[in-house]
C-alpha cells in the first residue's frame, strides 16, 4: 500500500514495540507510555480497518520483495476482528492494571515494585506478537511471533513471583516451547515439500506424506499452545496463579494465537480430511466435559475460571470441526464468533475475579459467602461474563453457540448439539457455585458492607462483561466484518 507511508499494518505491530522499549527504559512512566502506545496501536488498527473495508484484503510486501522471497503482511476481516479484539482487551486490561498494580509510589532512587515496572514492557511485547500473528502470511514468521508471545506470556504469568506462579510458569514455558518447536519442524517439512514459506505456497500444494507430517506436527504444536484437551495440562495452574490482569491477557488473547493460526492453516492449505476434523471434535468434547468437571471441583475462583477456559476452548474446537454443512468454509464463522465471545467475557471475568480477590482478601469459593464485604460491581461483572460464557441470550456467547448448533443441525449432527448442551449445563453448574456465594448472606457475622470499594478498577471488568453480553446484538455487523475479504474463499 504505497499510498500509506508507513502503512498501518506495520504500525500496528511496531507501535507497541516502541512502547515496550520506552516503558522498559523509563519504568516510572510505564503506565502512561503503555496506555499511550495502546491508544496509538488502536488508531493504527482503525486505519487497517479502513483499508480492509475499502479493499477487502490488503497486503504489504515487507521490504518490497513480495512472497515467496520476502514476508508479506495480510489483513482481511478475520484478522481485523482479532486486531480490534486485541486493542479492546489491551485497553481494558491496561486500565485495570493501573489500579491492580497501584501501590505506594516508591521514593526517589528506590526501584519500582516488580509488577509495576515489568507489566507494561511485557504486555506491549505481547501485543506486538499478537498483532504480528494476526497479520502474518508467512509460516516461519508465525513461528518467531509465537516465540515472542511465549516469552512475554511467561513473563506475565510469573509476574506475581509466588512459588506456585513460578512452577506453573515453568511448566507453561516448556509446553509452549515444545509446541513452538513442533511448529518449527512442521515448517521444515513444508519447505521440504514446497520450497516456500508463505501461505500461498501451501494453497497450491498437492497432498503428500511430507505435507501430512507437516500438518500433523503443526496441529499438535498449535493444539498444545491452544490447550486442547488432553494437551491442556499446563493451562489451569498458569492462568489461575498469575495476577489478574496477566490472567486476563493470557486467557483472552494468548491461547487464541494458536487457534487463529490453526484457522489460517485450515484456510490456506489442503487441510487434513474428515477424520482429523472428527478427532478435533472428539477432543473438543473431551475438553468440554473434563474442563467442566474440573471447574466443578475447583476450590478457588480463579482456578474455576481457568478450567472454564479449557472447556470453552474445547467448544471452539467442536465448532471449528463440526459446525457446518460445507465443512470449514462454513464452520469457521462459528469458531470465530466463539473466539471473540470467549475473549471478551473471559478477560472481564478474570479482572472481576481479581477484584473480588482483592476486596475480599481471598478467592476460596466455599467462603465467598462469609465475607461481609461484597464487591458488588465486580460480582455483577462476573455474573454478566458468566452469562456470555454459559451462552445465554442475547450475549455474544449465545450467538456463537447458536451458529455452532445451527450448523451442526444443518449437517444432521445431533450429537454435537448434545455436546454443546452438556457443556452449557456444566457451565451453569460451575458458575452458579460462585454466583451462589455472591448472593448468600446468612453466613455473614459482621454487618454487611456491599458497596465498599467502588473504584475505577471496577469499570474495566464491568465494561468488558457488559460488552460480552451486549455484543450479541451487534452480531450482524461483527459477521459483516469477519466476512470482509472473504476468508476461506467463500461469499456469505
Amino acid at each position, binding site marked *: *500500500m*504505497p499510498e500509506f*507511508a*508507513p*502503512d498501518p499494518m*506495520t*504500525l500496528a505491530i*511496531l507501535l507497541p*514495540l*516502541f512502547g*515496550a*522499549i520506552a516503558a*522498559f*527504559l523509563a519504568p516510572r512512566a510505564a503506565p502512561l507510555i503503555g496506555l499511550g502506545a495502546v491508544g496509538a496501536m488502536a488508531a493504527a488498527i482503525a486505519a487497517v480497518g479502513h483499508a480492509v473495508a475499502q479493499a477487502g484484503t490488503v497486503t*504489504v*510486501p*515487507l*521490504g*518490497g*520483495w513480495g512472497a*515467496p*522471497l*520476502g*514476508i508479506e503482511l495480510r489483513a482481511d476481516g478475520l484478522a481485523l476482528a482479532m486486531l480490534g479484539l486485541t486493542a479492546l482487551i489491551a485497553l481494558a486490561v491496561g486500565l485495570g492494571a493501573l489500579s491492580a498494580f497501584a501501590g505506594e509510589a516508591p521514593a526517589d532512587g528506590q*526501584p519500582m515494585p*516488580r509488577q509495576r515496572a*515489568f507489566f507494561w*514492557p*511485557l504486555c506491549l*511485547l505481547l501485543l*506486538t506478537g499478537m498483532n*504480528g500473528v494476526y497479520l502474518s502470511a508467512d509460516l*516461519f*514468521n508465525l513461528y*518467531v*511471533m509465537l*516465540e*515472542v508471545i511465549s*516469552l*512475554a506470556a*511467561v*513473563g506475565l504469568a*510469573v*509476574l506475581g513471583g509466588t512459588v506456585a506462579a*513460578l512452577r506453573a510458569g515453568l511448566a507453561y514455558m516448556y509446553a509452549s516451547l515444545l509446541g513452538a518447536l513442533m511448529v518449527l*519442524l512442521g515448517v521444515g*517439512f513444508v*519447505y*521440504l*515439500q*514446497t*520450497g*516456500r*514459506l508463505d501461505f500461498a505456497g501451501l494453497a497450491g500444494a498437492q497432498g*503428500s*506424506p*511430507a505435507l*501430512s*507430517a507437516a500438518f*500433523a506436527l503443526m496441529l499438535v504444536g498449535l493444539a498444545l499452545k491452544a490447550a486442547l484437551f488432553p494437551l491442556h495440562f499446563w493451562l489451569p495452574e498458569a492462568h489461575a496463579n498469575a495476577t489478574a490482569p496477566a490472567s486476563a491477557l493470557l486467557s483472552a488473547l494468548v491461547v487464541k494465537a494458536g487457534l487463529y493460526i490453526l484457522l489460517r492453516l485450515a484456510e490456506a492449505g489442503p487441510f487434513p480430511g474428515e477424520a482429523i476434523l472428527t478427532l478435533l471434535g472428539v477432543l473438543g468434547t473431551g475438553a468440554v466435559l473434563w474442563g467442566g468437571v474440573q471447574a466443578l471441583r475447583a476450590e478457588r475462583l480463579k482456578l474455576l475460571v481457568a478450567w472454564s477456559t479449557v472447556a470453552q476452548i474445547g467448544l471452539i474446537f467442536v465448532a471449528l470441526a463440526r459446525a457446518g454443512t460445507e465443512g470449514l468454509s462454513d464452520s469457521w464463522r462459528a469458531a470465530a464468533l466463539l473466539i471473540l465471545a470467549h475473549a471478551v467475557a473471559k478477560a472481564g471475568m478474570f479482572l472481576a475475579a481479581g477484584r473480588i480477590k482483592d476486596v475480599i482478601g481471598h478467592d476460596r469459593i466455599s467462603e465467598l459467602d462469609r465475607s461481609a464485604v461484597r464487591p458488588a460491581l465486580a460480582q455483577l461483572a462476573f455474573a454478566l461474563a458468566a452469562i456470555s460464557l454459559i451462552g445465554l441470550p442475547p450475549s455474544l456467547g449465545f450467538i456463537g453457540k447458536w451458529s455452532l448448533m445451527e450448523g451442526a443441525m444443518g449437517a444432521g449432527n445431533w450429537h454435537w448439539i448434545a455436546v454443546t448442551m452438556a457443556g452449557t449445563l456444566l457451565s451453569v453448574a460451575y458458575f452458579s457455585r460462585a454466583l451462589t456465594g455472591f448472593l448468600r448472606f446468612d453466613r455473614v457475622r459482621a454487618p454487611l458492607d456491599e458497596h465498599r470499594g467502588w473504584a475505577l478498577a471496577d469499570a474495566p471488568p464491568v465494561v468488558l462483561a457488559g460488552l460480552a453480553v451486549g455484543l450479541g446484538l451487534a452480531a450482524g455487523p461483527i459477521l459483516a466484518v469477519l466476512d470482509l475479504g472473504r476468508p476461506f474463499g467463500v461469499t456469505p
Partner: protein
Amino acid sequence: MTVLLAFDLLLAASIVGLAAATLLMRDAFAMIVAFIVFGMLMALGWARLVAPDVALAEVAIGAGLSGALLLRTLAHLRGGSLSAQGGASVSAPANGATQGVNALLAGLATCALGLAYLGAPQNVPGLEAHVADAMPESGVTHPVTAVLLNFRAYDTLMEVVVLLAAVIVVWQVERGLAETPAPALGTVYQGFARVALPVAVIAGGYLLWIGAEAPGGAFQAGAVLGAVAVLGLLSRHVRPAPAHRPLARGAFVVGTAVFALVALGVAGAGRVAFEYPPAQAKTLILLIEAMVTISIAATLAALFHGRAPVAVSREETDR
C-alpha cells in the same frame, strides 16, 4: 566419495548417540558437557552440509552460550560448585512403564516423520533462485546476510525482539534474588582471559564486517562479543553495578530500536517498510548490524549474568 559417505554416516550416528547420551547421563554436569559436545558435532555436520554461517552460530550460541548458561545455573543449584554433592545431583527418572510408553510414542512419531521425510520429493527447488535474482539489489554480497537483513529482515527484527523479551523476563524473574557465588575463574584462566579478551573483541569486529561478503555477521559477532563479556564477568574484570543499569538497558534496546526505526523510516515515497533505497542499502544494513551486534552481545552477557545489577547493600531490602 565413499570415505566421505562413511564419515557422514559416522558423524550422524555420533550426533544421535550424543543426543541419547545427553538424556542418559546420570550426572547433570556430564549431561551438560554431553550436550555441548553434541552441539559441536552438529555444527560439524552443518559444515559438511555447506552451511558455515549456521555452524558458526551453533558453535557460538547454540552450544557455547547455551552450555555456559546451563553450567552457570547448575552452579547456582549446587551452591557455587559444579560437582555433584551427595545424592542431590539428578532426580530419579519416572517409572519404567511411563518411560516405556513415552519411548514408544516418541519412537512411533519419529518413525512416521522419518517415512514422511523419505517420501518427500528430493531436490525441490527452494528459494535460492529468487535469492540469486534479488542479490544485486540487496546491498550485500553474502546470501545469508541478504536473507537475514534484507529479504526477511522482519523476521530478524522479531528475533532481536525475542532477545529483548528474554532479558526483560530474566530481570523480572531474578529481581531481588540473592547473589550466588558465580563460578570464578582460577588464576590460570584469569591470565588467559587477559590475553583472550582483546583478541576476541577484534575477532568479533571482523566477523561483523566480513558478514556482508562471507560467512559471519551480526549474530556470530554478537555472540563472540557476548562471550567476551561473559569472560569479563567470570574473571571479575567487569563487575555490574546499579549505575550500569541505564547503560545496560540502552544497550539491550538499541538494536531493536534502530532496526525498527530504520524499517519504518525508509517507508514512504512508494516504498514500504523494510524497503531500503538501493543506494543506501549497504550503509543501512551495516548500521543495523552494528547496533544489533551491540544488543546481542550485551543481552547474551546479561542473560548469563542473570539478574539486573544490584548494589550489595540493598539486596536485603529488595527481597
